[in-house]
């Protein structure tokens, strides 16, 4: 349904519509999501919802039907209703007739009803409002979600989490995260990172979002790739020690038997690399530290090394480079390092 919130009457009608939809015994989840989206659009929507709730409570006669009963009728009925009619949460309890019409009392009862309704609406708000978590350069943090799942964010990373009754949605806005997802078949856990979306039921996996590609590595359980950029058709389901890298073209070939110690090293604040070019390792250090390493010489950048470093110990890595004959390291004046080599063939020894 389309919501034009230009006129107040139309907002009221929409609010009335939502009231009825959400008071079906089992409102579809999609409707709930749409309602929250509508509700969060403007304060007027919240006001209208509360107004409708109050009106509804006031006229909770079994013969009132929407849309057969118009909003105007509801308002008229509300104004004519006896004071103690404002018992919103038990509308079908027969009411004792009252004698006096006291506007102040009616107003207060209405307010009480509003508060009750606001509590109910608030639940939807909180349940569906995204929460953001982030880390600064060089930081990492674990966050425990309300469903018991744990997300550990690596350096300079940011996520948005929406936990809903039938669905758990997480967006990796930037950086890298390890997800330890609690098992719940009725609430799939979807994680998106740009063009990539994965669906899990209960598992542990790493998602590493970079400028032009995103890598998914499964530590435990199964993870289905359900969106990968422009690529449609069958997408792979990954199991433990599988990795797939998705770029603008789509997913690459799934690697099996990935070294998890290396992938998970960041959890111990370490960089562990096997046969990686020095340039790539310098870039890895640069993900964690303000003092950037820039290796100017392309041949040196391409030299493959194996090693283990603490991700914040740029100094030691640079000290190794500085010890290579023909290689020069100097400060860039801003806490970083410029690495040059005399000879284009500069190698280790």
């Amino acid at each position, binding site marked *: 349904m389309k919501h034009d919130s230009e006129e107040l009457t139309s907002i009221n009608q929409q609010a009335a519509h939502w009231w009825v939809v959400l008071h079906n015994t089992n409102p579809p989840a999609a409707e709930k999501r749409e309602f929250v989206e509508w509700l969060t659009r403007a304060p007027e929507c919240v006001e209208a919802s509360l107004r409708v709730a109050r009106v509804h409570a006031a006229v909770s006669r079994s013969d009132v039907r929407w849309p057969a009963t118009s909003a105007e009728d509801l308002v008229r009925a509300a104004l004519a209703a006896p004071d103690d009619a404002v018992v919103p949460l038990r509308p079908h309890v027969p009411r004792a007739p009252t004698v006096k019409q006291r506007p102040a009392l009616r107003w207060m009862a209405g307010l009480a009803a509003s508060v009750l309704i606001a509590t109910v609406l608030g639940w939807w708000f909180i349940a569906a409002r995204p929460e953001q978590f982030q880390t600064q350069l060089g930081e990492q943090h674990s966050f425990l979600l309300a469903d018991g799942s744990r997300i550990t964010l690596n350096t300079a990373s940011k996520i948005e989490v929406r936990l809903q009754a039938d669905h758990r949605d997480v967006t990796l806005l930037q950086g890298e995260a390890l997800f330890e997802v609690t098992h719940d078949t009725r609430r799939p856990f979807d994680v998106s990172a740009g063009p990539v979306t994965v669906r899990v039921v209960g598992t542990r996996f790493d998602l590493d979002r970079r400028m032009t590609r995103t890598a998914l590595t499964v530590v435990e359980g199964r993870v289905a790739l359900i969106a990968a950029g422009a690529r449609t058709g069958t997408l792979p389901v990954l199991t433990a020690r599988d990795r797939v890298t998705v770029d603008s073209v789509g997913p690459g070939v799934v690697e099996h038997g990935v070294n998890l110690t290396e992938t998970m090293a960041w959890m111990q604040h370490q960089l562990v690399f096997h046969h990686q070019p020095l340039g790539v390792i310098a870039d890895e250090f640069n993900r964690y530290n303000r003092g950037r390493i820039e290796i100017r010489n392309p041949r040196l950048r391409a030299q493959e090394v*194996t090693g283990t470093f603490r991700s914040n110990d740029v100094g030691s890595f640079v000290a190794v480079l500085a010890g290579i004959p023909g290689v020069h390291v100097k400060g860039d004046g801003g806490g970083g390092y410029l690495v040059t080599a005399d000879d284009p063939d500069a190698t280790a020894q």
Partner: protein
Amino acid sequence: MIGPGIRFRARLVAALGLVFAGLHAPVMRSAEPEAYTLHIASQPLESALQEFARQTGVEILVFSYLTDGQRAPALDGRYTVDEALKALLADSMLTFHRVNAKTLEIRVAAPKG
């Protein structure tokens, strides 16, 4: 006049002395090389070096062309960093260089003579 001010200063100095003694203690202890209980299976040299780094917490770097195709023997027992590396590199023409207190670089051994 010798007043409470001087006594206070004396106490302060004594307290600082204790603090410094405390700070020095671990430094003195670290002078003797620390031994680690290591369990490293026989495997390609570069992954054995990674495993060694993982179990000891040292930082290590080796250029891949130095270790390509080489294997390391198994280690099982208590070793200092020096002992362990000597054992791991025993079958290779490689040695190690301490870049700083916690960082090691694997290098080609200088020819003997």
